[in-house]
C-alpha cells in the first residue's frame, strides 16, 4: 500500500542535528478567522503578545491564512503587529489541518519566531497539536497567564485538575515555545489605524489535489449557546423554582445582550439544557459580567465562573457562599429583583446609559424638609 510506505518514516518526525536556537526571535500570533472574519481571541492574543514582545525587545508578528483575507493582515497591524505573514489562496478558504499546518510550518521555519501563540479554540487546538508535533516543540494547552523571564523563556500557566490548580509550563529544549490560550482572558489593544507594519506574502505549501479532506458545508448554529465567549452571563440555579423561572432571566439577558447560564442542579432536573451549565462539569467561563441568581455557590460551580470580571449575586440567603466571592450582592427574592433590574436597564439604555434620576446613590444631599 502506498500509504503504508509513506506512513512509516513519519513517526519520529524530529530532524536530528544541531539547531541554532538563538536565531529564533520575536513573538508570533496565528490569526484565526472564518469567512474573512477574525475571531476576537486573535486580537486579544496580539494584545498580550505585544506586551511579551516589548519585554523581549523583539518584533511582534502575525500569521494570517485563508482565502480573501488581505484585510485581516491590515487589521493585524492595527491591532499591534509589526510584521504580518499572509497566505491568501482559494483552497485555504475553509480551515483544514494539513494545508494550514504546512503554511505555519513553513513560516515558522523560515522566519523563526521564539514564541508562537494561538487561540485555544477547536480550530486552534487542532492546528497547534499538529504543528508542535511536526516541529517538534513543547506546546502548552489552554493557557490563562503568559509571561517571559530574563532567559527569554515563555512562562505559560494553565489550569490543571478541573480548574483547581494552576501550573506554569516551560519549554527549554526547543524553539519556538508554543501555547494555546483561552478566549476572553487577555485584552486586545485599541484598534489604531495610524499603526504601520509590513505585510509579507507567503505561498501555499500544498496543491489542491494533495488536500484529502473536503469541507462540505458549515452549518451555523445561530442559537448555539456560546458561554465560553460570552461577555455577559445571566445564570440561574435552583432558586428559580422551576423551568418557568428562566423566562425572567432570559429577559434580563436579552436586554443586556448576554447569554443564559445555569448551575448543574437545574440542568440535572431538566429545567434547562446541558449546554447552559457552568462549572466543573460544564463550561469554564470568563465573562466581564456574571449574574448568579438563585445559585448557592457550591465549589463545583464557583471553579467555573470565579474568573469573571464582575460578579453580581442575587439570593435570598445572605449567608449563601456565592455572596462572599461576589462584587455585588443583593439579598432578596429574585422574582422581584431581577425584573426590577431588567426594567432599570431598559430605562438606562433609553437614556443612553446616563445615571438615573431615581438612583439611590445620587441622593447625596439630603433634601431640606418642606421643599
Amino acid at each position: 500500500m502506498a500509504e503504508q510506505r509513506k506512513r512509516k518514516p513519519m513517526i519520529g518526525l524530529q530532524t536530528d542535528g544541531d539547531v541554532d536556537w538563538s536565531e529564533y526571535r520575536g513573538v508570533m500570533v496565528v490569526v484565526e478567522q472564518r469567512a474573512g472574519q477574525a475571531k476576537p481571541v486573535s486580537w486579544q492574543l496580539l494584545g498580550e503578545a505585544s506586551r511579551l514582545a516589548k519585554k523581549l525587545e523583539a518584533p511582534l508578528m502575525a500569521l494570517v491564512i485563508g482565502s480573501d483575507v488581505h484585510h485581516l493582515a491590515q487589521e493585524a497591524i492595527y491591532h499591534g503587529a509589526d510584521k504580518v505573514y499572509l497566505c491568501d489562496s482559494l483552497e485555504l478558504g475553509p480551515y483544514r489541518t494539513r494545508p494550514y499546518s504546512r503554511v505555519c510550518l513553513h513560516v515558522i521555519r523560515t522566519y523563526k519566531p521564539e514564541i508562537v501563540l494561538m487561540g485555544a479554540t477547536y480550530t486552534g487546538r487542532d492546528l497547534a497539536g499538529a504543528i508542535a508535533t511536526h516541529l517538534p516543540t513543547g506546546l502548552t494547552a489552554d493557557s490563562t497567564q503568559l509571561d517571559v523571564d530574563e532567559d527569554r523563556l515563555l512562562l505559560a500557566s494553565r489550569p490543571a485538575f478541573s480548574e483547581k490548580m494552576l501550573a506554569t509550563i516551560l519549554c527549554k529544549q526547543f524553539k519556538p515555545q508554543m501555547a494555546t490560550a483561552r478566549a476572553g482572558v487577555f485584552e486586545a489593544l485599541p484598534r489604531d489605524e495610524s499603526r504601520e507594519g509590513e505585510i509579507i506574502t507567503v505561498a501555499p505549501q500544498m496543491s489542491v489535489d494533495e488536500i484529502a479532506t473536503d469541507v462540505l458545508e458549515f452549518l451555523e448554529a445561530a442559537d448555539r449557546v456560546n458561554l465560553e465567549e460570552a461577555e455577559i452571563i445571566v445564570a440561574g440555579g435552583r432558586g428559580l423554582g422551576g423551568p418557568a423561572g428562566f423566562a425572567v432571566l432570559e429577559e434580563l439577558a436579552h436586554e443586556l445582550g448576554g447569554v443564559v447560564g445555569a448551575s448543574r442542579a437545574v440542568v440535572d432536573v431538566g429545567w434547562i439544557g446541558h449546554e447552559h451549565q457552568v462549572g466543573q462539569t460544564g463550561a469554564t467561563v470568563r465573562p466581564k459580567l456574571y449574574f448568579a441568581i438563585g445559585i448557592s455557590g457550591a465549589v463545583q460551580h464557583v471553579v467555573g465562573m470565579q474568573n469573571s470580571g464582575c460578579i453580581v449575586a442575587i439570593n435570598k440567603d445572605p449567608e449563601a457562599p456565592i455572596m462572599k466571592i461576589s462584587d455585588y450582592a443583593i439579598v432578596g427574592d429574585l422574582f422581584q429583583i431581577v425584573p426590577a433590574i431588567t426594567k432599570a436597564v431598559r430605562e438606562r439604555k433609553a437614556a443612553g446609559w446616563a445615571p438615573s434620576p431615581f438612583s439611590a446613590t445620587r441622593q447625596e444631599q439630603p433634601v431640606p424638609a418642606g421643599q
Partner: protein
Amino acid sequence: MLHIVVCIKQVPDSREIRIDPKTNTLIRQGVPAIVNYFDLHGLEEALRIKDEHGARVTVVTMGPPSAEKALKLCVSMGADEGVLVSDRAFAGADTLATSYVVALTVQKAEQEWGPVDLVFCGKQTLDGDTGQVGPGVACRLDIEQLTYVEKVEHLDPKTREIIVHRHLEDGVERVKAKLPVLITALTELNEPRRASLPGVIRGTRYQPVVWTTNDFEDIDRSKIGLRGSPTIVSKTWVPDPRAVNTKVLEDESTDAAANHLLDELLATDLPQKLGWVKEAVSVG
C-alpha cells in the same frame, strides 16, 4: 474487514480530586481511576461500526501495569484486543512523547493485526486535558485528523469514504475524508454501552497484550518518557480564592436596589469594556 484502533487512557477522576485547605495540596486518596470518559465514546463509536460493518477493534493504552483494568473493561464492552504499552522508560511523558509511543503502538498493531483504517482518540483527557495527543498521533501516522467529532454521518468501507460532523464554537462542519483517518470523540457522539454478561466474563478472563520498549525495534529512546518531553512543569499552585470586597446593596425598595446596582456598574470600567458608553453620556 476494517481494523479500528481506539486510544484510551486510565485517569484519576479529577472531578473528585479535592484540595487540602491546610496544605494546599491535592488529595488523591480515594480518587477512583476511570477510563477517560471521552475515550469511551471513541470506543463506543468503534463498536457501532463493528456492529454495522464488521470490524476488528484494538484498544491501546500507554500506562502503568494497573491500566490493565481499563483494557479489560474495554474488552468486556466488545473490543477484540487490548494492548498495554508499559515500561518505566515511558514515565513522565508529555503530549509529544506520548504521541510518539502511541503512534508506534498503532503501527505495531497494524503489523500484528492488519492495516488500520480508523483511529479513535478522546477529545481530551481529564488529567492532561490538552487534546494534543490525538493530532500528534495523526501527524506521526501521516493520516488525516478529524477532531471534535459529534457525529459520524456516513462510512462506506468499500469506497473508504467517511463524513463526520465537527463541533465548533459557532456551528457544525460537515467534512468528508478518505480512510485512514484519526477521529477525536466528543460525548455528543453516542452513549457508551454497558457490558453484557458474557462480555463481563470475557473481560474478566482476558489478559491484555503487554509491550515494552524492547518490543519496538526502531524506538528512539531520546523521544520517550521524561527525556523526550520538552515541556516542564516549573510550578503549581492553588489560586487564591477570588479576593473581593463584596458590596451588599441594602436598599429600601427593589427598584432602588436595581438602580443602585446599575449606578455601581456604570461607575466601573464595565460600560467601556461592554460598549455601553454612548455619546449621550455628557462629560463633566
